[in-house]
């Protein structure tokens, strides 16, 4: 085999501006979807644990079904299917946000649920014994503890969101991946450009993972210094997720 | 695997009748990490004659378990040598010389297959029945057929009164029963030397006697044993010799009765009076 390929790394440096722009879009898309699923995930988790059976079932079905679908199918379904039915023309960005949010809300609901269940019943009883109404005791006693327990896992979910968001490029969003595909079509240097993009994603993911790890250590220290004899609830470490994300 | 069997004729000719001689054993954990370095053994010599029971006593952390693990090379010594049935092995692994490495591995296997060990926490394989626990070594290390190993396994289990539980899993056994299976597992290898590392320490008080009884019977059958224990009654009655270890050294050694009844060293005296009171 004659190895005649001439690398053209200069194309990467010439494209740096476009790639940076794409990266910004990737970050915006991820951040928005992350924020939305952070809120909606809690709502679904509360619905699952609320003392109202139909709501529990509904929330359970949501988490089971919506975790089973891949992001690509969400994107197709929303961008083409929903758009056709309702006559709404989602742009790729909006479709991406909705798709990422639907999937990650289901994941985050499970994280919140585990965290909420890990809070000792005694905490709730103590709050109620102080005469706090249910909603108050949840807001000021249960939730803050659960959130702290859940936070590292939630941040890890951001890692998956960033990776998954690359799929939205398929419907033409010019995020980091979309920009790269575009550049490849014009400059014909697929190896160099995809390598550069892969490296960018790896760097981004490593930073975010490190952040989650740092957060986890911080919180562990903080919590263990807290209430005397209080068992610190910690979710199973998800620093190393066991699946390659929703893709 | 003929080279693994210890021929009885060979045993007769061993110098001085020693089954095992450990000389100048040194062991340090976390070597090179100045702050975490622990010198656990600092030049230990012990030897056991055929059919004898050597009891090792000493305070927690004095290195008794580490010494046993040096003798069967589960945790090889940093310095010193162990001579077992006339074969001498040191902790120096010939890493980059394939031929010597193979010879070393063969010697290691000889040690492991002919030295049985019983652990404080049993270390039974939870995914195997009692019979399979006992049969594993004979099939995988001695090359017995499945049926031969099974036969031997059931016989060994019966010998320790566990014939009924051959098909039980470890989780279905009491502590005492687990330790009996562990003893059967070691004996199924037909070892020439048995090591006991606090075999009764993890047991409920009412179960200790049974296991000690088992060990005593084994000693009476002529087995050569090294026993780490805090049971002074057993040491005095069954032990032939006792060594007292402290801070990685043998502080005092002597015939079991005289050492326990009449310790000479003041550290031995302090330890014995603390443990017997």
């Amino acid at each position, binding site marked *: 085999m*004659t190895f005649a*390929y001439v690398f053209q790394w200069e194309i990467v440096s010439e494209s740096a501006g476009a790639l940076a722009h794409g990266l910004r879009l990737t970050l915006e898309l991820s951040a928005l979807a992350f924020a939305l699923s952070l809120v909606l995930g809690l709502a679904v988790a509360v619905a699952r644990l609320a003392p109202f059976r139909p709501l529990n079932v509904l929330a359970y079905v949501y988490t*089971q*079904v919506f975790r*089973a*679908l*891949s992001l*690509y*199918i969400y994107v*197709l*379904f929303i961008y*083409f*299917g929903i*758009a*056709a*039915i*309702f*006559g*709404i023309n989602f742009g790729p960005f909006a479709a991406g946000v909705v798709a990422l949010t639907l999937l990650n809300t289901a994941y985050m609901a499970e994280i919140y649920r585990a965290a909420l269940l890990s809070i000792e019943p005694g905490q709730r009883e103590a709050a109620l014994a102080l005469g706090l109404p249910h909603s108050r005791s949840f807001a000021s006693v249960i939730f803050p503890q659960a959130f702290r327990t859940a936070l590292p896992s939630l941040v890890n979910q951001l890692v998956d969101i960033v*990776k998954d968001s*690359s*799929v939205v490029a*398929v419907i033409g969003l010019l995020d980091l991946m979309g920009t790269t595909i575009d550049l*490849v079509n014009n400059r014909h240097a*697929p*190896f*160099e450009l*995809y*390598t550069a993009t*892969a490296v960018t*994603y*790896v760097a*981004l*993911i*490593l930073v975010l993972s490190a952040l989650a790890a740092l957060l986890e250590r911080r919180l562990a220290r903080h919590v263990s210094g807290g209430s005397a004899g209080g068992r610190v609830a910690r979710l199973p470490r998800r620093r*190393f*997720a*066991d*699946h*390659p*994300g*929703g*893709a | 695997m003929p080279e693994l069997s210890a021929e009885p004729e060979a045993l007769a000719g061993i110098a001085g009748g020693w089954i095992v001689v450990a000389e100048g054993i040194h062991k340090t954990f976390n070597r090179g990490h100045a702050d975490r370095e622990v010198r656990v053994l600092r030049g230990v010599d012990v030897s056991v004659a055929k059919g004898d029971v050597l009891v090792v006593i000493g305070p927690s952390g004095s290195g008794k378990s580490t010494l046993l*693990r040096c003798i*069967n090379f*589960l945790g090889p010594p940093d310095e010193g040598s162990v001579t077992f049935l006339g074969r001498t092995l040191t902790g120096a692994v010939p890493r980059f010389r394939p031929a010597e490495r193979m010879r070393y*591995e063969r010697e290691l*296997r000889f040690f*492991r297959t002919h030295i*049985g060990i019983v*652990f404080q926490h049993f*270390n039974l*394989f*939870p*995914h195997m029945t009692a019979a399979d626990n006992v049969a*594993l070594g004979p099939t*995988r*290390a001695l090359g017995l057929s499945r049926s031969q190993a099974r036969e031997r396994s059931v016989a060994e289990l019966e010998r320790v009164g566990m014939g009924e539980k051959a098909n039980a899993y470890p989780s279905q056994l009491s502590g005492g029963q687990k330790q009996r299976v562990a003893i059967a*597992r070691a004996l199924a*290898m037909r070892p020439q030397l048995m090591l006991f590392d606090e075999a009764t320490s993890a047991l409920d008080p009412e179960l200790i006697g049974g296991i000690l009884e088992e060990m005593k019977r084994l000693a009476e059958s002529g087995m050569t044993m090294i026993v780490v224990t805090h049971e002074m009654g057993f040491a005095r009655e069954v032990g032939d010799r006792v060594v007292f270890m402290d801070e990685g050294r043998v502080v005092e050694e002597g015939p079991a009765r005289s050492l326990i009844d009449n310790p000479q060293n003041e550290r031995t005296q302090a330890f014995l009076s603390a443990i017997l009171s």
Partner: protein
Amino acid sequence: MTAAVLAYVFNWGPVLDRWDEFLLGAWVDVWVTGLSFALACCLGLGIAVLRLSGTALLRWPAFAYVQLIRGVPLLVFLYWVYFGIAIVVGLSFSPIEAAIIVLSLTGSAYTAEIFRGGLQAIDRGQVEASRSLGLGRIATYRHVLLPQTIRIVIPPLGNTFVGLLKGATLMSIIAVQDMVLVATNVNINYFTPFEAFTAIAVILVALVAVFSASVSVLERTLRLP
């Protein structure tokens, strides 16, 4: 809004007529995932063993591999292998080969961490007991460590499998004839996006449900008394 809803005429005909094509496509997703998963497990186990090695020279590359692979989005990896590597090396993979390569390599980074966790969860006394019986390193892995590890890793490995199955739906992008491609073609030819993509969503949910149930059964079967 209401008018818009009414404007869309549901037409399940094209989807229902092609149920066999959908199932055939789903089968491609399933076998590609199954094969990739098997490869990922073999590779992952090897990497896990390296990760636990006493030699830093083996431990570090294994660690770097895991970190690197897990940072690359599947789609980027797929394009890198299918378009990027092809042009450099001068040999091109078929779409399905590229998909299998990408899914197995990605999967291996996850299974490696799962196996490592499983192996580390086993008490050191188990290894000592096995070695004291004269079993060698490999026999110890085979008869003592792996049977115990398997029981620990089945649930997380099940998650990895589901993740790979979901990842496999991306391969239609490089023209592998899987169920997503069938749906896409139906949509292009009959303009029934809702029906076409609902169909594959239902298939995927069903596949995941069946698979999760099988994992639970397997877990229960292997559970020790």
